[in-house]
């Protein structure tokens, strides 16, 4: 049920190759699939309707590109529209001409206002501002204390004259805070208000009173990325009740697709300014419309993956990884173990898979992946002798039994791992020898001196491969990979997993993950490493 849009569209278009133009029927056939995909991503229904009609209009009469298949073409259109809607207007915080600049946060309960206040303060302070946090949430028990702790962590003073827990008037607090900021030379005031519901007219009036009392320069609507269809009602209610200038999206570190971003932008026209991606105060950034678009479409998030990798690995580790890959020696279980533990630092394996484009068709399996299984694999490998790890061919029956006993697994598990490893080794060898199209051998990686240069070449080669201008080539190469994967899974599936869902276990031409090859790959050329600057 969780197919990705690209998978769906590929099946819709399988019979439609080679037409000169996208016809009306083609467009209608895709419209329903796009609708489903957007709804699954929690985009609000009215927004979906309008969005689809826009897509239809734009797709109508569009030349069928020679480079893209119709499905890809439609997705490109959808993606571009999404980016346009989401990012149409990005802007910075408007600072008041005469300080202090007042920023007011509003939103539902539990959207993350208090945490965001701290993040915003820290972010502003990094830009040589002197923010002041104001505890105007006097409703929730100990919200004031929470803000004080957050303020302490962010290194920002907190203005909290009232103890909270239902005592005190938030309007007065807000009014006094501006005065306090002026006296103490704070150039930004961040007012954290209580969470409230859009239907709660009393609380909305209170928010409006705070607004009138302090005349904020920016009102930020804080909203949870997990919100569903209700986003429209809530966003509208807050717009009518308090009004806001921009939106901050929180909890983006989860796996919600965040269709609410599109809904809110579309309904209210307010830009999404900030994205909050974690529990730590530094997990806060400006909003990237392009990434959000691919997230909503579930096209994988290679950019995030890369960034995560960069944050996690240091260069030496990466070089080591790369040289293992490129060396003439065979890929051994030791290498695998090492790389697996490195990759696991990036986070749960299911998340990583989810970030890869085109993995949607395996989503069911991905959802079921448990990192404990990886622990088991690790245990199996660690129960092998160094000689066995270097040369798994020597693992015979009695060794297998010993390994299984040593790792607390069954012999069949060991068998499975070894078999699969040989497959992988073969694949690696192929990659190294340039057996895979679009991936020419990696020359001269041995010496340390020319490593950099060689790497540059590899980089070019790989880039060419990933965004191959020739979709045939890209697809063919992907076909090989998919076939490889398919075979591996079939082997596992037929022997031991009869309950594997159809399409993976029992034959049938696998649909290619279309997100993998070709132009739908996020454009890596726009991505710059910090050190390349």
């Amino acid at each position: 049920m969780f197919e990705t849009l690209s998978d769906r569209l590929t099946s819709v278009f399988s019979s439609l190759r080679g037409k000169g133009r996208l016809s009306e029927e083609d467009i209608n056939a895709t419209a329903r699939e796009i609708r489903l995909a957007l709804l699954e991503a929690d985009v609000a229904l009215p927004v979906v309707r309008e969005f689809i009609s826009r897509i239809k209009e734009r797709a109508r009469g569009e030349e069928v590109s020679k480079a893209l298949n119709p499905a890809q073409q439609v997705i490109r259109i959808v993606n571009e529209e999404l980016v346009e809607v989401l990012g149409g207007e990005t802007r910075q915080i408007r600072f008041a001409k005469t300080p202090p600049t007042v920023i007011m946060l509003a939103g539902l309960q539990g959207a993350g206002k208090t945490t965001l206040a701290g993040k915003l303060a820290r972010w502003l302070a990094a830009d040589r501002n002197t923010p002041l946090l104001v505890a105007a949430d006097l409703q929730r028990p100990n919200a004031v204390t929470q803000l004080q702790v957050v303020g302490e962590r962010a290194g920002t003073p907190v203005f909290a004259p009232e103890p909270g827990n239902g005592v005190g008037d938030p309007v007065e607090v807000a009014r006094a805070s501006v005065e306090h900021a002026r006296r103490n030379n704070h150039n930004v005031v961040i007012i954290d208000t209580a969470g409230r519901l859009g239907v709660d007219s009393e609380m909305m009036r209170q928010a409006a009173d705070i607004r009138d009392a302090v005349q904020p320069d920016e009102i930020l609507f804080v909203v949870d990325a997990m919100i569903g269809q209700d986003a429209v009602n809530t966003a509208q209610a807050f717009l009518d009740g308090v009004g806001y200038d921009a939106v901050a999206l929180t909890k983006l570190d989860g796996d919600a697709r965040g269709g609410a971003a599109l809904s809110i932008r579309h309904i209210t026209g307010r830009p999404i300014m900030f994205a909050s991606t974690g529990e730590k105060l530094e997990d806060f950034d400006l909003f990237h419309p392009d990434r959000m678009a691919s997230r909503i479409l579930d096209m994988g998030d290679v950019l995030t993956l890369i960034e995560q990798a960069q944050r996690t690995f240091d260069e030496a580790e990466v070089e080591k990884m790369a040289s293992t890959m490129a060396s003439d020696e065979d890929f051994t279980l030791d290498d695998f173990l090492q790389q697996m533990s490195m990759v696991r630092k990036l986070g749960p394996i299911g998340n990583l898979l989810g970030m890869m484009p085109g993995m949607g068709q395996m989503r069911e399996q991905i959802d079921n992946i448990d990192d404990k299984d990886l622990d088991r694999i690790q245990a199996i490998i660690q129960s092998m002798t160094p000689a066995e790890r270097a040369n798994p061919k020597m693992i015979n029956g009695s060794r297998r039994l010993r390994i299984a006993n040593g790792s607390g697994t069954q012999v069949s598990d060991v068998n499975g791992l070894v078999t699969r490893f040989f497959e992988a080794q073969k694949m690696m060898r192929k990659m190294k020898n340039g057996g895979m199209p679009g991936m020419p051998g990696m020359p001269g990686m041995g010496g340390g001196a020319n490593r950099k240069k060689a790497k540059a070449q590899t980089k070019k080669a790989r880039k060419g491969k990933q965004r191959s201008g020739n979709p045939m080539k890209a697809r063919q190469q992907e076909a090989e990979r998919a076939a490889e994967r398919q075979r591996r899974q079939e082997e596992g599936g037929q022997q031991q997993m009869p309950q594997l869902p159809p399409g993976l276990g029992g034959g049938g031409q696998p649909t290619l993950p279309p997100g993998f090859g070709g132009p739908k790959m996020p454009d890596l050329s726009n991505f710059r490493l910090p050190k390349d600057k």
Partner: protein
Amino acid sequence: MDITLLVAIIIAVVLLAAGGFFLVRTQSSVKPGKDEERPETPGGSAGATAVQDRERDPGTVTGPPAQAPPPVEEAVRPAEPELETPPPSAGRMVRLRARLARSQSSFGQGLLNLLSSDSLDEDAWEEIEDTLITADIGVTSAAQIVERLRTRVKVLGTRGPDEVRALLREELLAQITTDTDRTVRTEPHGDRPAVIMVVGVNGTGKTTTTGKLARVLVGDGRSVVLGAADTFRAAASEQLQTWGSRVGAPVVRREEGADPASVAFDAVSRGVEDGADTVIIDTAGRLHTKTGLMDELGKVKRVVEKRAQVDEVLLVLDATTGQNGLRQARVFGEVVNVTGIALTKLDGTAKGGIIVQVQRELGVPVKLVGLGEGPDDLAPFDPEVFVDAILSQD
């Protein structure tokens, strides 16, 4: 740093590792962990404190304890540590009815208008489906409900709006009805207290639900110990402390950053020593995608089980949550074997339709609903009332 190469390596390794999963997984799925399937203790379910049962049968409501004054609805929530005696749980359902009627009338209204039209054409059916989708019921579920409704209307030749409405009610009810018991198991067994864990993602209202639940129990004359195992979020334990001191329930807490499992263990130990009836453990909010934090949650449960059996794991779901709610429920279910769901913030415009999917796919029943910020806005979930409220005409 050669990023593309790096990514390629990661992909290769991950694929290999994920491939490994399929084989090893079979193994593990054959032998489910013993702790995963915890049978209900007969004693627990027989004498369960069914908030719901009490509701349905007001006659069995035990009066407040002798030492406490009769239940009073307090107008103001005082900050001073004066003990309050919350009203017993009876009568809460009436409020749920009223609230639901308010928050969901537009939903019910829309459906009714559709169903009341004489001819049910293609557009009308699609609109019914759309209305269901708007309630976050999910595309697949909505399509199925409509499909089955259509078939039945065709078979029965039903045309009248009342009949169609009755069918839709049945259909919705069928979607959220489970055989599972909807009572919250809070009855102590023997000398050990009942242990309830409250889990969920950030900002769904775990601490608030914990506090409200404690009030319900205290109102019914139970002794409750609260465990502030949320040692991560700033001032979370103070928040719980505030709830606890209002009703006079002791709160076991530790400094920020302490090991949540040890806090939970201490809370249960305290409950055992004090001879409390129920121990409620409030855990830190965690996104289900963070393996480390989910492991921590598993640990909290395992450690608690060394001292006493965990009777109830309540997953707190926010009614505004969209399709992601299903994933949350699934992952939390895998880690701590969720036994019930508390649906919060149902007093807003959100419909909470995601629970339809959660119940259908995972079979975990909704046990409690949170209806607002008031300290007594927690009620047992009743599917009939829920659906009736959705379809109510006022």
